């Protein structure tokens, strides 16, 4: 059997027992990338030589009987939002097209220490802003189940590469659903941990109070293995939490007895696709068959989630992205052209006798800021910077930002109340299966609504997991989302594993996988 059909846990066992080498395994994934990525376009960059060299080193160390890290020899794909030392990190933006950070993100350092083989950087919506990966400045990623469709986003490349068998494990980030939504649309397992569980150091910030790094994999077991490496306190991230990291890879195997599942009434209303509805309800019955009890609950402020999110996230983004001004690094407009343009504008105005307008022209610095940002950012990023700048402006702060913070607190309170009655909340990841590429690019609001079921977890800071629970008649994956109380990652993984032991949706492969 092709190693690509095996889970990361199984591969690790084979690596450890010497049945396969990391070089062979890495080579197999590189071949898969070579074969399919020209169509899927999940990767922005793959450094085959470097990956193989690294795999070779790990193999020799293994051969020499040296102690190896937790992921020794397993290839892992990295979302291009995470800084990798000395290697291009673009965030899907022209602004950082040639940016090479002089440091590793905390999770990259952890992966390296765990002897993972970093196989490539995956495509994403520019600065993680989007739900289809179409906002990447470089390429559009396709859904491996239907190349005409989106893999979701913003971690579209991260989900698609796992779905297409181009990497066993991949690391994504989730600000409003950016791990769970693409995982759902691509039929893989993706976990957004509780805020503070994983260090954000070296994660290029979109919305600092919402961003969280998490694993994407083929199963809960594999995700548990990766999360175990990613999670942990980091003194360099003041918002990371100093709490022991459970041995997720072990605890994931223990089924939960007397699981109390909550179903949110509001999640099963208007707008939910019939096939998705049916698959989710069927998944709930699977849980019941495994001994779970189900209770209908309400998250009354959930309906304000998207609105709240689209105030808070752009506010933070407008501030976080202010640093891309062309001064210190990143894209800077052509200075000679800028100076020449200003001079000719001045001459034209002065010749026309429009002295005042000539005097009011930008100074070169301001023009440099304007042009560099105008050229470096794509339309969605600009839209959110404008939204955030507006909402934080004097006279609007209270009405928008402050009010959004209040609603955010209410959303969290809803969850706290719910988790007093149930262990986990189950429901759809998205209202529909993967949509067509280009379908929503001209309708930002429709695009924002794909986060409907996922944003609240970010606003509340809690964890959530998405995994396949069925397929539509068109053969597209349908995702189930579980959400848990703060730091209940173990419970989320256990519940997912229980389901995956009872079903085989997560072991289905798109046609290209086996070609």
């Amino acid at each position, binding site marked *: 059997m092709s190693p690509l059909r095996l889970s990361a846990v199984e591969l690790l066992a084979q690596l450890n027992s010497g049945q396969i080498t990391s070089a062979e395994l890495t080579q197999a994934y590189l071949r898969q990338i070579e074969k399919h990525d020209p169509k899927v376009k999940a990767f922005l960059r793959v450094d085959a030589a470097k990956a193989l060299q690294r795999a070779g080193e790990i193999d020799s160390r293994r051969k020499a009987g040296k102690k190896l890290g937790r992921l020794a020899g397993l290839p892992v794909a990295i979302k291009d939002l995470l800084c990798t030392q000395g290697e291009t990190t673009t965030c899907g933006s022209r602004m950082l097209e040639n940016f090479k*950070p002089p440091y590793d993100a905390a999770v990259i350092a952890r992966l390296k220490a765990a002897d993972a083989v970093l196989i490539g950087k995956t495509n994403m919506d520019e600065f993680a802003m989007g739900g289809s990966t179409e906002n990447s400045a470089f390429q559009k990623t396709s859904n491996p189940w239907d190349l005409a469709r989106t893999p979701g986003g913003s971690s579209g490349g991260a989900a698609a590469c796992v779905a297409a068998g181009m990497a066993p494990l991949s690391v994504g980030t989730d600000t409003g659903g950016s791990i769970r939504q693409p995982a759902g649309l691509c039929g893989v397992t993706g976990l957004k941990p509780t805020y503070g569980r994983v260090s954000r150091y070296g994660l290029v910030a979109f919305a*600092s109070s919402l961003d969280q790094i998490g694993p994407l994999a083929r199963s809960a077991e594999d995700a548990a293995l990766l999360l175990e490496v990613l999670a942990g306190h980091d003194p360099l991230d003041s*918002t990371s939490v100093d709490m022991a990291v459970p041995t997720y890879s072990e605890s994931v195997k223990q089924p939960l007895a007397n699981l109390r599942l909550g179903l949110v009434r509001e999640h099963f209303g208007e707008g939910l696709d019939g096939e998705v509805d049916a698959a989710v309800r069927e998944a709930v019955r699977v849980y019941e068959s495994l001994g779970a009890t189900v209770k209908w609950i309400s998250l009354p402020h959930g309906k304000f989630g998207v609105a709240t999110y689209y105030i808070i996230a752009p506010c933070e983004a407008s501030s976080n992205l*202010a640093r891309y001004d062309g001064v*210190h690094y990143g894209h800077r407009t052509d200075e000679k052209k800028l100076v020449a343009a200003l001079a000719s504008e001045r001459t034209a105005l002065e010749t026309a006798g429009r002295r005042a307008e000539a005097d009011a022209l930008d100074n070169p610095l301001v023009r440099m800021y304007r042009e560099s940002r105008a050229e470096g950012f794509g339309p969605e990023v600009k839209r959110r910077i404008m939204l955030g*700048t507006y909402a*934080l*402006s004097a006279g609007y702060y209270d009405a928008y930002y402050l009010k959004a913070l209040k609603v955010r607190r209410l959303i969290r309170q809803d969850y706290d109340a719910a988790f007093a009655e149930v262990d986990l909340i189950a429901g759809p990841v998205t209202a529909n299966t993967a949509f067509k590429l280009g379908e929503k690019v001209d309708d930002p609001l429709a695009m924002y609504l794909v986060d409907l079921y996922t944003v609240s977890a970010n606003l509340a800071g809690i964890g959530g997991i998405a995994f396949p629970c069925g397929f539509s008649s068109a053969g597209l994956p349908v995702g189930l989302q579980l959400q848990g109380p703060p730091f209940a990652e173990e419970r989320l993984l256990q519940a997912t594993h229980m389901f995956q032991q009872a079903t085989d949706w997560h072991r289905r492969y798109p046609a290209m996988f086996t070609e």
Partner: protein
Amino acid sequence: MTQPYTVIIGLEVHVQLQTRTKLFCRCSTKFGAPPNTQTCPLCIGMPGTLPVMNREAFRLGLKTALALNCQIARATKWDRKQYYYPDLPKGYQISQYDLPFSHDGHLEINDPKGRFETKRIGIIRAHLEEDAGKSMHDELAGQADSRIDLNRAGTPLLEIVSQPDMRSALEAKAYLTELKLLLTYLGVSDCNMQEGSLRVDANINLHVDTPEGPVATPIVEVKNMNSFRAVERAMEYEAERHWQVWQETHQRLGAVPKQTRGWDDVANVTRAQRHKEESSDYRYFPDPDLVPVRVSDTELTEAQASLGELPADLRRRLEKTHGIKPYDSDVLVGAGRPLVDYFVELAGICGDGKLASNWVQQDVMRTLNEQKVEIDQFAMRPKQLAELLAAIQAGEIDTSRAREVFIEMVASGKSAGEVMKAQGIVKVDESALTALCQELIEANPKIVADIRAGKLQAASNLIGQAKKKNPNVNPGRFREIVIELVGKM
């Protein structure tokens, strides 16, 4: 005050806190390193980096706020102040906006010369923030590039905002002097204005007396004052300028937008700085990368305990324990704690605070100045100086000869006794002194007549003659004997 107005001044002081490392990263804060050598990905604003608060900076801020009698917020937070400038690499400054860690304190100022009455200057707030980098602009604007040095970016600053409680340039200077002294005593800053460790902005206007009562003139912010003297002169200049403007325009507060003026230290004038077209909106919001800071009871107690004796208390103690005048305690305390300790030790040994104070203020401080050393490096310790003062107190030597001995002690490192011995200085005993006096009285009948006629200053002539004959003659005692003997004639 004869002017028909009151000057109203409030000051904003930025103080660099003396931490080893920056406020949110572990880069060194040392001044004077080559440009951009004390930087890291965080303080140059690279993506993905995250700030981590330097607790030592917070501790120093807390200490200062307590010394300024401020209320301490038990929970405080960080905010982002957003604006674009090349020396602000993140596009925002991490500061404190609506919940500063301290507020509502005061600092007492006084003038030993009595030009104003002792008063309390209110402190509105003291908050922490990070410094920006430095821009170095080419003098020929547009001819060359501006350069940016980010060594300073991220250095911890304490911003201390006073109430508009100062009523003259003199009070403003006194406030700054007292504040600087306090900060120095606390050891929280080196307060070096040349290196930018202490920066002052002033807000000034007038309350003009009119038949309808006092009327406030528009407030002007004055920047670019690089010394306390500059602040004093700028405030004097501004008060006068406001008065002229008032007489010409009768503009009241609110009639025109707040103006910012820069002090020109060479021309001794303030000049209007270029108007910003729109009023700046800093779009403050809480920094989501940092967690709120909580101040524990222990931390507060420890900070309180670390204050030590503050300048105002120290002055009072010196006056009370050593019987010196406020003017003297002001000079001594103003010269720093190590000098005060020197004085206290000296006064303790010789038992005469006034004598000790005079010698420390004049001879010791002059020598420190000449040698450009601090009191700690001054070789003559209080015990050694006390030996000289004891000789004066015993009448073995007069003050002017003692000064010569002091100079020789400094130069040679010898003890007072050794120098006096080498110079043959011994106490002339009473009988020898009386004999010499008798001899001179007999030789100078005219002078004696003058003395008898009540011209006591004529005795100086005899003292001069006596010193020529025997340089060891104590002029004070000799004078007493002259008057006594002449009186008996």
